[in-house]
């Protein structure tokens, strides 16, 4: 890499992608390195390009991202080449309107008549002419299919660049104006009848493909040398081509016909300004005069000399590297700007979609919460049974516990109704909610408050929001879920709801059980119940031992026991009621608070999953784009200093 100032003889070797830019000449003095690309951070730029490449292809299903990808494909190859072929000579495309003296200038620079020039017929140049130094291999220049003629030159002015004399953009009929047969027919008074005009010959210019050729040649150019005259510097057709090819290509400006035309460079600069192009310097030469002087070996006129000097200083050797790097940076900036233009209109809609997904989720959750809460509240007998089972299981031994056991086993004799529905099954302790396949899928979740209509309504609203963000199939589904999607969604919903309900109910029950299961509660109950037994037995003992044996009253008989048993049962039931009432207290409130925790369980997600995913992905895509944009901006700010006198498209980074 020490031979920076001389043109490479061979195409640059393919570099290891891990080290795209090895061996910057550190041994050189710092000024030279700084001149090459002041503040240019190659590694960061490579990272950025890799990041942009990955990002642009990240979301192929989203149409705006596809358009970004298409933009990327336009610049990717050039960016890649700019990084790989850093030290290759620059290709300078000479463009301008017909008759502005492109070929004359090329001939002057080449030192001999290589390209036909003159005023005989317009257009003069109908095929591009590539001028290269004798010792430069330009096989890498892919100009197949445009009929380019390659000629060699020994002129020092083109020793270290490749010069391309391009066809003009002026003379080819416009893309929108089809050759109009009427225009030939209007001769003089011997008019052809209107109907017979179709036979008229085509115009000669119909075969003119100069603009197409130009557009085929320009992609191969690194720098544009824009040639204009007083008549053509405001030409619309030239401005259009420049606008299309200026991104990432520095520009040189030359006013020709200096000996005939007034100096219009100030006005040209204004015009370029209006087209968004920065033109720090514009050269003014007379091509014919320059060619004459070169041929005669005379001292060149100052304008021409300045142009040759500018080419040497700005486009050769180390400067070529700088041109390539800043060109690449500008190109990346141009791409980012295009991408931003594509994506900006969708930022707000994507945010709206994210919000919409949240709103619809809340709506469905609210419907579900209401239904589930109602269902739980309505299942009083089931709650009662659960609590009894819990208590019976805990309280073993002791008279009151025995009493409860007895009641429970009596209750077990009563046939239990089969619990129906999800909530019923869960409360009945059957934790396997099954759902019907096919049309029954929707019915199986009807009891949790969600119907087909509700889900479809939410999805339809989301379809509208998504359409606003240009999100459609296949990123998201339609309002009506497909059969398979219904099966999966309903299945997932039931499973999640089941788990969530089981957990919630368990927690509810265990809280209550703990409340009733406190030792002192049990002790009191047992004490009171035992007290009743003791009271009954004590009374019987008193009657027998004191009343009968001592006082001699007659024995009360077994009738007393019946009475005692009734009191005992009533007392037991009373105690049981108190215990259960204690357990039941605040059940409704607890159910309500259980339902408020429903959103946390993400139960309805399956129904709006596709929208949530699509909104998340697009949002992440937009964010990443903004991050890359910021990184590029940072890189550009560091390079902003040390710009050359070459023109460039403005606003590469704003």
């Amino acid at each position, binding site marked *: 890499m020490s031979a920076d100032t001389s043109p490479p003889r061979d195409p640059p070797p393919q570099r290891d992608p891990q080290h795209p830019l090895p061996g910057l000449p550190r041994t050189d003095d710092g000024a030279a390195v700084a001149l090459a690309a002041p503040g240019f951070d190659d590694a960061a730029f490579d990272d950025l390009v890799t990041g942009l490449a990955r990002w642009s292809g990240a979301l192929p299903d989203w149409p705006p991202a596809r358009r970004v990808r298409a933009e990327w494909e336009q610049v990717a190859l050039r960016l890649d080449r700019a990084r790989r072929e850093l030290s290759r000579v620059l290709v300078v495309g000479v463009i301008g309107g017909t008759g502005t003296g492109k070929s004359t200038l090329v001939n002057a620079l080449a030192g001999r008549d290589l390209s036909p020039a003159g005023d005989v017929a317009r257009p003069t140049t109908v095929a591009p002419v590539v001028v290269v130094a004798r010792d430069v291999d330009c096989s890498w220049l892919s100009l197949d299919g445009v009929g380019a003629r390659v000629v060699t030159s020994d002129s020092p002015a083109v020793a270290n660049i490749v010069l391309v004399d391009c066809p003009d953009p002026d003379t080819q009929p416009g893309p929108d104006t089809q050759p109009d047969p009427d*225009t030939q027919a209007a001769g003089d008074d011997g008019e052809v009848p209107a109907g017979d005009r179709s036979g008229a010959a085509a115009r000669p*210019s119909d075969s003119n493909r100069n603009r197409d050729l130009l557009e085929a040649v320009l992609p191969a150019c690194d720098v544009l040398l824009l040639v204009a005259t007083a008549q053509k510097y*405001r030409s619309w*057709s030239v401005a259009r081509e420049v606008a299309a090819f200026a991104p990432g290509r520095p520009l040189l400006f030359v006013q020709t016909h200096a000996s005939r035309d007034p100096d219009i460079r100030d006005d040209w600069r204004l015009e370029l300004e209006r087209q968004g192009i920065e033109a720090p310097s514009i050269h003014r030469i007379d091509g014919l005069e320059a060619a004459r002087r070169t041929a005669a070996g005379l001292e060149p006129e100052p304008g021409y000399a300045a142009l040759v000097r500018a080419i040497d200083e700005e486009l050769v050797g180390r400067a070529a590297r700088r041109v390539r790097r800043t060109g690449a940076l500008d190109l990346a900036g141009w791409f980012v700007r295009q991408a931003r233009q594509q994506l900006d209109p969708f930022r707000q809609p994507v945010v709206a979609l994210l919000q919409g997904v949240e709103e619809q989720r809340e709506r469905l959750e609210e419907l579900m919460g209401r239904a589930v809460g109602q269902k739980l509240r309505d299942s009083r007998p089931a709650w009662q049974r659960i609590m009894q089972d819990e208590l019976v299981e805990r309280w073993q031994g002791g008279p009151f516990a025995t009493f409860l056991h007895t009641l429970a086993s009596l209750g077990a004799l009563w046939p239990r109704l089969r619990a129906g529905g999800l909530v019923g099954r869960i409360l009945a302790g059957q934790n396997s909610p099954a759902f019907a396949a096919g049309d029954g899928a929707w019915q199986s979740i009807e009891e949790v408050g969600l119907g087909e*209509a509700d889900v479809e309504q939410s999805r*339809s609203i989301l379809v509208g929001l998504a359409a606003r963000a240009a999100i459609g199939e296949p990123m998201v589904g339609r309002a009506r879920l497909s059969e398979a999607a219904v099966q999966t969604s309903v299945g997932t919903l039931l499973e999640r709801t089941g788990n969530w309900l089981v957990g919630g109910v368990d927690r509810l029950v265990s809280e209550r059980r703990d409340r009733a299961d406190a030792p002192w509660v049990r002790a009191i109950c047992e004490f009171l119940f035992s007290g009743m037994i003791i009271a009954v037995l004590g009374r019987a003992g008193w009657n027998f031992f004191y009343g009968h044996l001592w006082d001699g009253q007659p024995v009360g008989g077994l009738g007393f026991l019946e009475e005692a048993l009734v009191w005992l049962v009533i007392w037991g039931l009373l105690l049981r009621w108190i215990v259960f009432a204690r357990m039941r207290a605040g059940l409704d409130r607890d159910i309500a608070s259980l339902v408020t925790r429903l959103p946390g369980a993400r139960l309805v997600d399956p129904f709006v999953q596709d929208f949530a995913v699509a909104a998340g992905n697009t949002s992440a895509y937009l964010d990443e784009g903004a991050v890359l944009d910021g990184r590029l901006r940072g890189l550009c700010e560091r390079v902003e200093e040390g710009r050359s006198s070459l023109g460039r498209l403005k606003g590469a980074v704003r």
Partner: protein
Amino acid sequence: MAADDPFRRSVPAAPVSRYAAWAGSVRELCSVVDLLKPLAAELGAPDPAESEWFGQLFGKLRPQVTREPILVVAVCGGTNTGKSLVANVLVGGEISRSVPEAARTRCPVASLPVGLAARIDLEELFPGFTPRPWSSGVDALGGGSDGDDLLIWREDPSGRQSQRLILIDTPDVDGTLRENWHRAEAVRNACDVIVAVLTQQKYNDAAVRDFFAAAAAARKSLIVVFNMVNWPAQRERIAGWLATFTAETGAAPLAVYAVPHDFSRAEAGTIEFFPLPELTGNRAAGGPIPPPSEPPADLATVLSAVDFDRIKLRAMEGAFRVVLDPRAGMGAWLDAFESSSRGWQEARTVLAEEAQVRVELPSAPRELVWHEIWEWLEPRRSRIDINLSRVYRVAGSGVAWMGRRIGVVRSAQEKQEDFATVELSALTQALTAFIDRLDAARRRNPRLEKLLGDALVYGDRASWYADLERRHTALPMVSEDYRSFVRGELDRFSRENPRFLQMLLTGLSLGSVARPCITVGLMVAGAAAVPAVAAASHGLTTLVHTAGDYVVWAVAPLAGEGVLGLTMAGLKPLLERLFAGWSAERSRVLTETLHDVVLGDRLEEIERLAGAAARPEVARARRLLHECGREVS
């Protein structure tokens, strides 16, 4: 300038009266175009203002057909070719400043003969321009940038200008400011003679060629001036340049002049015009090119000597021919208009096919319909019947009370609430299906996309559902419309069936009907699809919303699984009608939401656009074009 000068030929008899006779047709054509133009924009047909014939019709024929014949001469060409310089020389005084910078003349500048400004209305003669009197040579440089198309005018300072001649300097036709092109085109359309200023650099530029080709097509007389010629070195070249130019544009110039490149003369405004007669009139004669011996000519004098009437007639005729041209003229635009309208007819068919949705409503609460029938029946029954039914009613209510107590039977109120809930979700689902289908239709047809896209993408869908819910809540269980429908049906039936009462009583005790199924669709009048659906299902069609020619409709097909016994054969259709009518009545809220909130007046819009081709104006325009075509040829 010999005797066979193309400018001077025999004058046709009363040429002015010849084109004045077209005035009526021109006016009528203009009024038709004015009428159809906004419709064309809605249809998506090409904008006529973009086309040549429109420019000729409105910029040339309409303003000039009845006016005293004034010859309009325009100086046209590319940027910085010296148009202003040529114009100033022609006028003999500065009307437009000639400056070194390109594209500086921003608006046309007209030089009028003394006194003409008082006689004519420039705004009418040059439609689209705002005339403004000249104050200095720089008027044309700055003006017009504010979007206003100015036309600066000045009375001829020298007083030499012919009384029937207007000379105009125009902006460029190839610069980066496109509004300049349009102004130049407007002037070109209005003029009769064009002084084409060409240069060695620009004579074959596509933009320049296109501009003059259009002028040649409209048979404007052309005078070519090659400016900035390296005289006499490039004299030999001019023939070649001109040949290219005429071959490309189809123009046949009346005369060709060369103006040598001479900076000092240009500065002084004293450029010379060297005639090149061998390039025009004598071409056919062949022979050697005469030596460059002609002295410079005074172009202004030449212009004032041309045969005004002949040139005028030629230009007017040319303009008319452009309008009448079958391929690029107004006829072609009418074709495009009609085919766009046909496109809308297709869109209408797509919509009629797609936008049909079956609504599966829940079974109607029987007692509601029964109640209406009872109401009608009450005054017609015998006492025994009444007492008997009272007994039934009391017994029935006792059973119902018990049922309610044990939670098996729900009260009438609760039943209606249940029904309303289920019905609302059926309607909601139908609305969703409808939106989905409209989305599909919009994707199928680009015109529907254009018309419905905004509503479907940017409409607030949540509010549509809210609207449906609101309408549904506000809907009474039995509306007056339905009540009178029931009465009417029963009256009719009882007239036709004398044993009706007995049958009805039997029917009431048995009755139960099928689950109703309503199809809601967007019917467009004349679309055959819809009546066919209605007929095929032997349905009851309620035409809910009639506005103009279109209808949102609902069909309740009478599904046959009614539980009514065979003995009820005669009564069954009646009862089904009554129930189906009730359901159709209920589904009305859906059609109302669709029409009022979702679609707005877009259906009428489609109807209007689909019918645009059949408008009488189109036929009239065609007839006029046909007649004028005969007249001109």
